[in-house]
């Protein structure tokens, strides 16, 4: 009798486990086949020389990685990612914080402003790129047309054709498409800032900057690390806007690691070397995620 009861519970436990695995299994299969396996496959390809067509992939060991270190195009692409990360993080977060604080205590037309600021966020990055390519159009684009209309012809130029201006110009387009996201998230975070502290600080005579620095920003700590993480990872992975506006040009002035990898692997058919670039990109992503997690752990309670 006791044996059969024990048996029953043992079976039941197994059955419970089986149910648990059944819930997880479909997702696990998809994930392993189309994410995990390809990732290891990329590592393998990065150790080969292959054009994507030949039946044999020639194994070359770490040759591709040795080439990477001496590849000025990789370093210039990474430096563009770095610039993108710095400007593309600071600007939208600062604008979002600024507008969030302006709108915090409720303003007439609040819903209007929120709707407008978030509008570019729903657009695809491709659409953002096409819109700004038009804005920067040297002949008839609104920016140059406006400059000419007010007599500043000297300032009118081919924005995306200029090696020094192209990258900042694209980043501005990215900021246009993204600051609304930061704004909305910061607005949500501001709901949790302690109003009594603000009022107490006002009584103590704290000015606006002091209130911002000592109360509002610490109160937004979690939200700010969260969106910083988002923008950092976007900055590492940015592809769409760059490909649409300049395809990495003029010359290599706007190539980022993703466009360089895509171009190498799929347009120039250096699959092995492209895979090594992809691994570099994976590592950069990992480092950035790690930095973010450690900042968050330290910044947390």
């Amino acid at each position, binding site marked *: 009798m006791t044996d059969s009861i024990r048996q029953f519970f043992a079976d039941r436990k197994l059955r419970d486990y089986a149910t648990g695995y059944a819930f997880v299994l479909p*997702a*696990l299969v998809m994930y392993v086949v*189309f994410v995990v396996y390809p990732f290891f496959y*990329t590592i393998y390809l990065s150790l080969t020389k292959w054009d994507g067509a030949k039946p044999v992939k020639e194994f070359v060991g770490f040759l591709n990685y040795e080439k990477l270190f001496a590849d000025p195009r990789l370093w210039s692409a990474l430096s563009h990612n770095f610039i993108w990360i710095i400007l593309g993080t600071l600007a939208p977060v600062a604008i979002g914080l600024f507008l969030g604080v302006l709108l915090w205590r409720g303003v007439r037309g609040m819903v209007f402003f929120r709707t407008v600021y978030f*509008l570019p966020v729903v*657009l695809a990055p491709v659409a953002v790129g096409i819109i700004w390519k038009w804005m920067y159009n040297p002949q008839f684009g609104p920016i140059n047309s406006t400059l000419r209309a007010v007599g500043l012809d000297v300032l009118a130029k081919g924005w995306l054709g200029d090696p020094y201006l192209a990258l900042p110009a694209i980043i501005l387009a990215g900021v*246009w498409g993204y600051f609304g996201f930061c704004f909305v998230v910061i607005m949500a975070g501001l709901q949790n800032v302690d109003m009594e502290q603000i009022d107490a600080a006002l009584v103590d005579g704290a000015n606006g900057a002091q209130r911002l620095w000592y109360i509002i920003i610490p109160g937004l700590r979690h939200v700010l690390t969260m969106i910083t993480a988002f923008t950092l990872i976007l900055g590492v992975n940015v592809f769409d806007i760059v490909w649409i506006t300049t395809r990495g040009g003029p010359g290599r002035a706007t190539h980022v690691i993703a466009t360089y990898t895509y171009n190498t692997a799929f347009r120039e058919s250096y699959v092995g070397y492209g895979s090594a670039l992809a691994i570099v990109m*994976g590592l950069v992503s990992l480092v950035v995620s790690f930095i973010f997690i450690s900042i968050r752990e330290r910044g947390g309670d």
Partner: protein
Amino acid sequence: MDSHQASGEAIRVMASAVTVRPRRPMGFWIAKGAQYGMLILFAVFVLVPFMWVIFTALKSNLEIAQEPLGLPPNWRFENLAQAWNQGKFSRYFINSVIVTVPIVILVVSLSCLAGYGLARLKMPGRMLIFYFFLVGLMVPFTAIMIPLFYILRDIGVLGTYWAMILPQTAISLPFGIFFMRAFFSGLPYDLTDAAKIDGCNDFGVFRRVMLPLAGPAVAALIVFNFMGSWNAFLLPLIYLQSDKLRPVMTGMMFFTTRWGPDYSMSMAGTLIVMAPIMAVYLVFQRQFIQGLTAGAVRG
């Protein structure tokens, strides 16, 4: 009169000490004006590019050359019809729907199942599996895009819609599972126990008790993934190269490249692609904002 004002000022200062809102009339209005000025400035910064796309789309090329700024002299709505027909946009939109709908259904249902399993069901190695999925959040698509092309070719789906549906679903799963697990972990256990006493098995508890409670989270996940796969660009650029399979985003790129110097056509094409999503956003604004910021606000 002066003393009157002074006493008024004194009262106001005293009052402000009580209500903690020091307001001096002039300063207040200047601050208010500056506040609105900045808010409007940024609204203009957002809206101007939209306006110019619309204006350019509705002018002829001659009108663009003569009058690049300003309203269209004649509102040529026929440009939109022309771009629609010449750009094969009906094909592109249908393709986008054909790939996006299965992706959203698959991601949401698999994420709910796995998220629930990892949050509430007992099994050995549960945390290990969860961390295994979390690692996927850190793997960028670029790191797997190259071999995926050859994998999709070898299993024979390149040249079909599955070449986008399968990988896009897989790369969306880590976030979906992370999100749904967090949601299901937060639900009270009493509900599960009560349903079990009433004779529900685990799947019954999931389907009849937990899933109905997950409405808002599921809605956010749907919006998030709909936007993600509708707006995806690099993935269809690599795996859906045939013009017959091309979704809206890559279709729009090829259209604007082909009609590059024809500004009014390429802007009309852009407007056609932008307009539906903007219209849906303006109607379902709250859901859009919740869905797109779901990851950031909750985390």
